């Protein structure tokens, strides 16, 4: 019997040629060793590293030089946690202090990013002052920066002087006509330029900046926001262009759009993609490259492991009282980083041995299954269903277990029990898990248990504190043994 072979499916899709869609291995292999090393242990890129290492962002860059239809510049809403949203803008001095305070207290924190809340390169003095000081005073922290690209060509020279690990450019299109539907205006050469003309300049600057960074040997990642009906069909083309120019990763994120955000898309009723639509596009743009599937679209002042935010512990008045001896902290950090590295290496070895064993063992012929997992890190199932703010989605198949994406539990509810349209948080969560056939967590309450079952998602609390991949495989085998996977019904989704 012929099985749907997962890794082949994406390359056969239209609009995405095999040459632009490498697998994780291929993408990583083509990088120089020094760069691959960086990426492998980077919490934002490496799927296993993000269980161990943490990143933080400091909000030193409030000004922006363009307008995007998915952004609104009123960024003091504490209920929101999406990119561009922060509550406290820091001076470079405060940012340096905060970074060192976090690095001392959370030794797993290895990456400092400047991502906003505006455009970091539209605030060159504040951004570069922060980078300059951190390179000097905390050399064990990697630095990264995100930009819309408009001011990028002018910043490349300065960026190359600091210890910049990588640059992220948000590129939503390479066609000015499409750009005009995403960017209403840019501020350029002392004028506000609207429409297609503005979008054209922005696109040219983005592409020029990308080329200049690659020429300097700086690692470039490209982010795109998927906007159904606007650029969803176009992003395969974007993917091809940026990869041909040398971006090592293209990360497609969903549009986040609600009327209460007050954005153009929110107010005009532009919807974001469904989890299925997003996954289809991610598959067609990135093939099996799953390094970025766990991107949480953190807030510009997020602190902590991906998906968690401990920013409150490091507010300005709290860090003012902290006494920080960074050289001493750096010694401690080094020891901890080594221990983490060893643990990660042994896990990686174990994983590849297991995969080899699985290959050697008699192969199942069952269809693939998506499962949701509640975890707070360390690679184990350790969160109660009701406490999970997000779920990691894994796919189990006879070929093994692969990470697919993460999904937010109750995206933007501020914690009250119901959303605007009367749907309970629980209902929203269950809906977010659509397409999954099991959910693995440390415990599940009675009410959600019933709702999950009714939705065709099997709750499972039997693998608490076990390693995710092993538990997912165990559940998959149970399902296979129980004859639940013989139907071809859901296989369509999983291989699409």
């Amino acid at each position, binding site marked *: 019997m012929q099985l749907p072979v997962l890794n082949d499916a994406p390359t056969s899709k239209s609009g995405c040629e095999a040459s632009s869609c490498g697998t994780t291995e291929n993408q990583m292999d083509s990088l120089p060793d020094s760069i691959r090393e960086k990426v492998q242990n980077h919490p934002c890129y490496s799927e296993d590293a993000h269980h161990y290492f943490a990143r933080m962002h400091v909000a030193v860059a*409030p*000004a*922006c030089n363009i307008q995007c239809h998915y952004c609104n510049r009123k*960024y003091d809403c504490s209920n929101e946690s999406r990119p561009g949203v922060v509550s406290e803008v820091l001076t470079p001095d405060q940012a340096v202090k905060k970074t060192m305070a976090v690095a001392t207290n959370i030794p797993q924190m290895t990456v400092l990013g400047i991502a906003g809340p505006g455009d970091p390169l539209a*605030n060159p003095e504040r951004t570069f002052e922060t980078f300059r000081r951190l390179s000097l005073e905390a050399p064990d922290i990697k630095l990264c920066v995100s930009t819309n690209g408009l001011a990028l060509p002018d910043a490349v020279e300065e960026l190359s002087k600091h210890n910049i690990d990588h640059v992220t450019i948000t590129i939503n299109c390479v066609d000015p006509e499409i750009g005009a539907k995403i960017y*209403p205006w840019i501020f350029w050469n002392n004028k*506000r330029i609207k429409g297609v003309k503005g979008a054209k300049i922005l696109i040219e600057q983005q592409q020029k900046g990308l080329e200049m960074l690659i020429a300097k040997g700086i690692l470039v990642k490209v982010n795109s926001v998927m906007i159904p009906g606007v650029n969803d069909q176009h992003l395969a083309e974007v993917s091809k262009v940026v990869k041909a120019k040398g971006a090592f990763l293209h990360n497609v994120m969903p549009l986040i759009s609600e*009327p209460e955000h007050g*954005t153009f898309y929110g*107010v005009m009723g532009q919807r974001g993609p469904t989890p299925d639509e997003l996954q289809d596009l991610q598959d067609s743009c990135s093939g099996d490259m799953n390094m970025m599937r766990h991107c949480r679209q953190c807030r510009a002042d997020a602190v902590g492991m991906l998906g968690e935010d401990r920013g409150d512990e490091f507010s300005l008045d709290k860090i003012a009282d902290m006494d920080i001896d960074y050289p001493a902290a750096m010694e401690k950090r080094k020891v901890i980083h080594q221990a983490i590295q060893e643990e990660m290496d042994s896990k990686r070895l174990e994983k590849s041995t297991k995969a080899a064993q699985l290959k050697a063992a008699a192969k199942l012929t069952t269809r693939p299954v998506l499962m949701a997992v509640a975890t707070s890190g360390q690679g184990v199932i350790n969160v109660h269903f009701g406490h999970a703010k997000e779920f990691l989605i894994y796919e189990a198949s006879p070929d093994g277990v692969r990470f697919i994406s993460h999904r937010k539990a109750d995206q933007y509810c501020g914690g009250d029990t119901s959303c605007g349209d009367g749907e309970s948080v629980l209902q929203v969560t269950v809906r977010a898990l659509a397409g999954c056939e099991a959910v693995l967590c440390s415990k599940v309450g009675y009410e959600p248990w019933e709702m999950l079952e009714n939705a065709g998602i099997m709750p499972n609390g039997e693998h608490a504190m076990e390693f995710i991949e092993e538990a997912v495989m165990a559940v998959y085998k149970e399902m296979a043994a129980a004859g639940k996977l013989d139907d071809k019904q859901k296989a369509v989704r999983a291989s699409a």
Partner: protein
Amino acid sequence: MAVKIIESCVNCFACEPVCPSKAIYEAKPHFLVDPKKCTECEGDFPVFQCASICPIEGAILDSLGMEINPPGSLTGIPPEKMAEAMRELQSH
């Protein structure tokens, strides 16, 4: 003659560095223009620099007290649509 920043300013800092006359300063609860320093960009640029980068409609007024960027001019959201969305939200 001078422009004025009013309370709808969200303190985004964008206008401060682009002012050729160093007339804009950070203040509480929002940024302000020093009317003695503001030249309305005359002699430097044909358009008000602050109002050309400010993302917030209505946040900067000209010397006659008129909004330089009226509702809908920057976001592209028709004012009636915005009002409708706001009503919708408040009814919840």
